[in-house]
């Protein structure tokens, strides 16, 4: 018998009531549906389109949407925007997803350790968190981007490295409030190792807030990738990403507005989906958060 069993098992409670509430959350369901369709389009779409996302055809440059087979038009190099958009979706969504996984992992570990040990450890780690938060994230991003060749993997890593602080704070606060609870004390008395208590006993109690934060982190990561790629420091061409498709679009705003409009709408749809889902999860899991 472990300490967790003394407690009412949180998982099952979450499964039944939380899930039902989530399923009834209309916005969350809309978000799920949009995300599902978007993902599906990104996975299957490129196979159905007549053009390769890398195929350059200068004779067809700047074709407006619905020209021939270019349903969404072409870019300044005559590449098919629909094909690029969907391939970009794969990259942008994956970058967003893995950046979330990574930053949530970093944030959780730091938050748990800081919250559990308290005292000096807490002070040092949380000052570190504060210090990271005191930088404009774009500074860290651009500075880090200067060190590396911005491949999708590296972009994922640097977005994660600059985005774990919120999770750390949330987790730290949760752990602090749970630290003195019976099941933790019981665990200690049973002589369980600290790592066991932290990650086996405490962590399951914080799944709700972490999931909510993680969902919002995906949204944030997608926006960040878009922004740094828009500035030209993110994913490098010819690999498309939603952000780098917007790079240079301002220049053609008057002559080829679709270059800017299409990827932007797609980003908004993706990010909105995650925010809807996050909102639903927050309600369903009864997570207290700031009014925002």
């Amino acid at each position, binding site marked *: 018998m472990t300490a967790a069993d003394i407690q009412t098992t949180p998982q099952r409670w979450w499964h039944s009531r939380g899930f039902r509430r989530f399923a009834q959350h209309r916005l969350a369901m809309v978000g799920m549906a949009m995300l599902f369709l978007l993902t599906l389009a990104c996975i299957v779409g490129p196979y159905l389109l007549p053009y390769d996302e890398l195929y350059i055809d200068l004779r067809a440059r700047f074709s407006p949407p619905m020209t021939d087979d270019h349903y969404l038009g072409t870019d300044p190099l005559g590449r098919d925007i629909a094909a690029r958009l969907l391939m970009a979706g794969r990259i942008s969504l994956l970058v967003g997803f893995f950046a979330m996984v990574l930053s949530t992992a970093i944030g959780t570990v730091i938050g748990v350790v800081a919250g559990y040990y308290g005292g000096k450890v807490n002070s040092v780690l949380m000052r570190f968190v504060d210090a990271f938060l005191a930088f404009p994230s774009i500074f860290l991003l651009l500075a880090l981007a*200067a060190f590396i060749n911005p491949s999708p993997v590296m972009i994922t890593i640097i977005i994660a490295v600059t985005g774990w602080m919120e999770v750390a704070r949330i987790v730290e606060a949760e752990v602090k409030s749970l630290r003195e609870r019976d099941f933790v004390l019981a665990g200690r008395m049973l002589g369980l190792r600290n790592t066991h208590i932290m990650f086996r006993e405490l962590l399951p109690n914080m799944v709700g807030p972490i999931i909510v934060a993680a969902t919002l982190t995906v949204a944030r990561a997608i926006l960040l990738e878009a922004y740094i790629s828009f*500035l030209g*420091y993110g994913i490098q061409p*010819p690999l498309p990403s939603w952000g780098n498709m917007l790079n240079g679009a*301002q*220049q053609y*705003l008057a002559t080829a507005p679709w270059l800017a409009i299409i990827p932007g709408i797609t980003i908004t749809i993706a990010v909105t989906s995650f925010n809807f889902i996050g909102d639903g999860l927050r309600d369903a899991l009864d997570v207290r958060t700031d009014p925002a």
Partner: protein
Amino acid sequence: MEFSKMNRRKALTMLGLTGAAGALSPNLLVSPAFAAKPEEPTGQIVVGVSQEPTVFNPLMPRIEVDDGVHLSLFDGLVRISPDGEFMPSLAAEVPTIENSGLSEDGLNWRFKLRDDVTWHDGEPFTAEDVKFTLELIVDPNFRSWRTTGHDLVRDIEVVSPTEIKWRMEEPFAPYMSILVETLMVPKHILGPLEDRNEAPFNQAPVGTGAFKWGSRRAGDNLELVANTDYFGDGPYVERLIFKYIPDLTVLYTQFKSGDIDITSNQYITPDNYAEAKDLAGKEVTVVPSSTVESVFLNYEKPQFQDKAVREAIYAAIDKQTIIDALYYGLPTPTESYLPQQSFFYNPDLPKHEYSIEKANTLLDDAGWERGSDGIREKDGVRLSFGNSTTSGNHLREQAQQFIQQSLGDVGIEMTIENKPPAVMWGEYWTQSQFDSVIVGIVFTTGADADVTVRFSSDAIPVQGGRGSNTGQYKNSDVDDLLEEAGRIFDQEKRKEIYARVQEIVRDDLPLLPLFQYATVRGHKEGLKGVEPNINTRIDTWNAAQYYWDQ
């Protein structure tokens, strides 16, 4: 240094002349024959610039756009006309052997100065100022941008307030071109200061030029006002305003709307040319610039050791399509690193021929076999390299991706590694850490064809050299030729040597020349006196002569 007898006189007469020999009247630069110049400076001109002028001491490191301001505020001893002729400016005459300004061996220089020049604060300009300027440039504590040539100057002697002479350590033919870019600063202001790097002068300069320092609203605009005591022709407007508009699209919009009167650096983007040239009330012209765009290779990288590879890459680049489709047909394809308007340009270089087939054959014959992934390989070297440029230059980024696709067709992998400017042009560039870059470079020294700092084996920074040969190009023939051309003063002879250098460089292909830039410049129709000058770095070189048609 040996000149043949027959040649000697001619040689020294030629110093400073490109093409036509002959007496240089100090009045040659006097305005084109337009009638309606105002008697008094009238009105203002707003110059739109996309980079902000921030350095106002003309001897300190600066960027192109700063030059435009410097040339309005300051003068050099000599200046250069659009045809490449040297003109006296602060000097009363350009030194030649006839007027005994130069010794026959090219070692002794003597300048006679104008006696009617005053600084903006009313102090007279004298030979002391010239001496001070030349000495300041080589002062080890001063942050000067170029010491080349100046470091050969010895024994400067002020003969009289209007005459100065010095000796050169060794003959150095490009020095006149360098003097054109050496603008004089006042001794009476900078001389007494201990720290010239942080002098107040640097933010409120005092020159001899057609315009005086007005005010600066940093991050926004810079206002110069007419110097009514200017010794030369002009100025004809009361105020010259440099308006900083960091976005080229906005720059163009403001030009269209009439908010700015003339576009300067970086001008109108090529994609707007078609529309711009038909704008009512605007004069829009395509002006060749001396910047040559190339795929610049790092000669030392194993991928580029084989000449066949360099030739194959060159053959696989569809230059004409890049120019026509991406750059709207504005730039001129080129085979040389020199601008085609240069006196030293060699027009007989072999013409580039776009041929995927030829590229493939070259590589096949040289033994570069395609691997399983389609990328060629030879002796363990994979034909894959990085290519960088500064992020944000959209046309260049498009060309880059286009080239990437072409190279892919012949089994060469080019990966794009673009960087922010500060990173790109840092050690990455200066210490030759790149594989290849796409870059536009001005190779000349002023209007001179001396390219020692770019191509000499002694100029490779990463190998301890003193120049900017970051591509690590090495060819002993080129070294010898450059050395020779720098020491002789006969321009025709120098032209021959530089023609040979261009030939060798074209053959070695340390850089794959794409095109010579052309800029789309525009100004309002009523604005007169605007004249492009390929021998200067910036178009507002003669703002003194700008005026509004009455």
